[in-house]
């Protein structure tokens, strides 16, 4: 079995050269994951964030990755060293240690504090900053936020925007299914709800996600900074066509967006049917 595990022979102590080789190998091992991670991220990672604050998520992700890689490496070393060194063999005896001495307790306490400070507290501080500045800090309409009402359903995204007048519940409201057009460099605030089951409004390239709950309105926001078109996915199981429930966000530069809004508003007015009781849907916006 032992040969199966690592294939080493039964010498009681490894010579210094073997130690050096092991250490070098471990160092290489330490570098390999980060290199591999970079390689993998390039190959299979998400697209570069297209929102003003999406990069924060990525940097936090890589901060955590670095820290847990180091932690896991320590665990691996502490696992591999006894495997290499402390195999059962004739004449070898375990070191009797109950770990109940004051020294051990002190060691445990110190490691706990270090783990909490390094691993938890630093991440907490970073994420609290992000939360206060971005996630909870939803911009309001007076400051120029662009409003979007998102009404999810099995299995589509209905979007309603105000048109040029900036007011919901008027005939020039632009209603689209699965396609959303947003102005660039302007925060967009989404009021998200659902007609039937729970959906989740997920725009991977903007690094945002918010559940669409029936009977309640959730708010989420992001500020697109790169023009282009991005996928909207549903991230909460919503039935058979869950996987087909995807849409597109088109982000247009300010000028192009103005032109789009004018045209779409004009078409919305054309399509408005005053006899249709279902033609308008909108809800009160609360700040």
């Amino acid at each position, binding site marked *: *079995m032992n040969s199966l595990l690592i294939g080493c022979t039964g010498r009681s102590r490894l010579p210094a050269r073997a130690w050096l080789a092991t250490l070098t190998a471990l160092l290489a091992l330490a570098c390999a994951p980060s290199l591999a991670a970079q390689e993998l991220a390039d190959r299979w990672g998400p697209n570069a964030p297209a929102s003003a604050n999406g990069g924060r998520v990525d940097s936090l992700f890589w901060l*955590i990755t670095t820290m847990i890689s180091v932690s896991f490496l320590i665990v691996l070393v502490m696992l591999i060293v006894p495997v290499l060194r402390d195999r059962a063999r004739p004449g070898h005896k375990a070191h009797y240690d109950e770990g109940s001495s004051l020294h051990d307790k002190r060691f445990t306490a110190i490691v706990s504090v270090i783990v909490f400070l390094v691993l938890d507290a630093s991440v*907490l501080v970073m994420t609290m900053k992000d939360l206060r500045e971005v996630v909870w800090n939803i911009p309001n309409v007076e400051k120029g936020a662009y409003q979007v009402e998102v009404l999810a359903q099995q299995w589509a995204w209905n979007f309603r925007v105000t048109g040029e007048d900036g007011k919901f519940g008027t005939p020039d409201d632009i209603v689209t299914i699965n396609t959303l057009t947003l102005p660039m460099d302007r925060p967009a605030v989404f009021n998200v709800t659902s007609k039937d089951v729970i959906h989740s409004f997920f725009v991977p390239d903007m690094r945002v*996600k918010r559940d669409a709950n029936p009977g309640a309105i959730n708010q989420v926001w992001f500020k697109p900074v790169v023009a282009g078109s991005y996928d909207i*996915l549903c*991230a909460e199981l919503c039935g058979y066509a869950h996987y087909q429930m995807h849409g597109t966000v088109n982000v247009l530069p300010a000028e192009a967006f103005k032109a789009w809004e004018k045209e779409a508003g004009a078409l919305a007015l054309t399509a408005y049917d005053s006899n249709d009781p279902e033609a308008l849907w909108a809800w009160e916006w609360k700040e």
Partner: protein
Amino acid sequence: MSGDHIHAEPTGFLRKHVFSVDHKVIARQFMWFGLVWLLVGGIMAMMIRWQLAHPGSPVPLIGKLLYPRGDGSVPPDGYNTLFTMHGTIMIFLGLTPLLIGAFGNFCIPLMIGARDMIFPLLNMLSFWTVVLGGLVGFYSLFVPLGAAEGGWTAYPTLSSTIGTPGSGETLWAIAVFLIGASSIMGGINYITTIVRLRAPGMTWSKLPLTIWGMFFTAILNVLFLPVIGSAMILMVLDRSFGTSFYVPATLNQSGGGDPILYQHLFWIFGHPEVYILILPAWGIISDLLSFFARKPAFAYKVTVGAMGAVTVLSAVVYGHHMFTTGMTAMLGESFMLLTMIISVPGEILFFNWLHTLWRGNLRFTTPMLFSMGVIFVFGLGGLTGIYLATISTDIYLHDTYFVVGHFHLTMAASSLFGAFAATYFWFPKMFGKMMSEKLGKLHFWATIIPLTIVFCTMFISGYAGMPRRYYNHTDVDYLRSLQHLNVITSVAAFFLGGAQLIFAFNFIKSRWWGSKASVNPWEVGTLEWTIPSPPPHHNYDTIPTVVTGPHEYSHPALKDRDWISQSEQLPT
């Protein structure tokens, strides 16, 4: 109390093998029950992976049999059923009976020196209730519209009649309720047995860590399974009797409920459930690492304290499953902080395990390999939990494959490795036969390598933004580039699934044709290894008196051997 006097062994077949109140028979029943369901759940996992690797192409061998109305490929509704029932079966009918039902039942009386559980009849009822639950769950596969399709989390209103009008979801809720009732009965039994039936001298500080793990699990079972039970009753009322606890006013005329209420109830249970599954595994491997490192468990009391701390903390961190539902800033940040704190007892456990190995005399038996495997996979799974505890990264990673990879490593792979370690370790005592070590080691390596690939590739695809529970990812443009990653995951998953056949073969072969086990094949000191394998009906002819701790290995006072039984006095 049943420990005080010896009951005669029943002679009738039914009373002896079927409706037995003997904890060892019930343990074996739980074991077979759990293993059969693990097989069913495992086949479902293979079908899920097949669909993800080759969307819409016929499942080989069994496709046409299972889906006769089509070309044998998994249909979208069938796919939803598959992952729903895979989760439910693995958690409630596979791992819980195997880890808690089988080893809880087997180890608790034997390791604390008792003749049986304190409530043997309740013990039997606990098993037959989970059987009933399993039957109801199995039956739900055959009702019109098929079994539950709302995911194992079954969030309303998808799990309300609005999303799933078929009766499969109702039967699912009833099955979960029954299984929960079984766990509560088991939990009460375990707690009372551990508190009341310990042999003389078996003080709390001499309890094997396995028993501590079972004890904490039993506490969580008793406290939190009632929550899921009530959630399920409300769901059945909503579905079958037209109430609207979970159906909001916009979807109902009979008054407004709240789908988020269910999520709170579910995760109040659901998060402790993770620890319900992992605590026994932690306890078991804490013991096994010490047994096979021939060294005392490092900082026994600290380990117990850390497990206790996790037990307490598990009750107050559930909100991290709901960061995207729109909880308030204060609530979200509180849950985030509390969740982060779990890393401290977690880290203490890791250091105690690793210290137990450090400077030991390591015997690489199969149970030892699987115990070390738990350190590896739980290390991977536990550390990746930090991404999901952190709100801003969780918002991005929530409900992607990152989460799937994370919880499979923690609650599935770690618990399963704990269960495998326990099976290889206690099999001689349970069945009186040795399992093949050669096949066991092959099983270990054939499991851990593909397992690491399966779940680590999921982290990559999750970070790329691939949502879970998608029937076909190639439907979305930017996920199409991840398809070859999905194929890699699936191929590794098939190897992982195939490796379990080695275990099945080893288990069945050893059960009937294995070599006979001696009283103490592993040379360990806990009480169950002082009596014949398998133990007689009444376990102990005379209840032993415990004088030594469970982990006195390589004690300097021991001369000719490196272990001592708990009922033996250490030489001075």
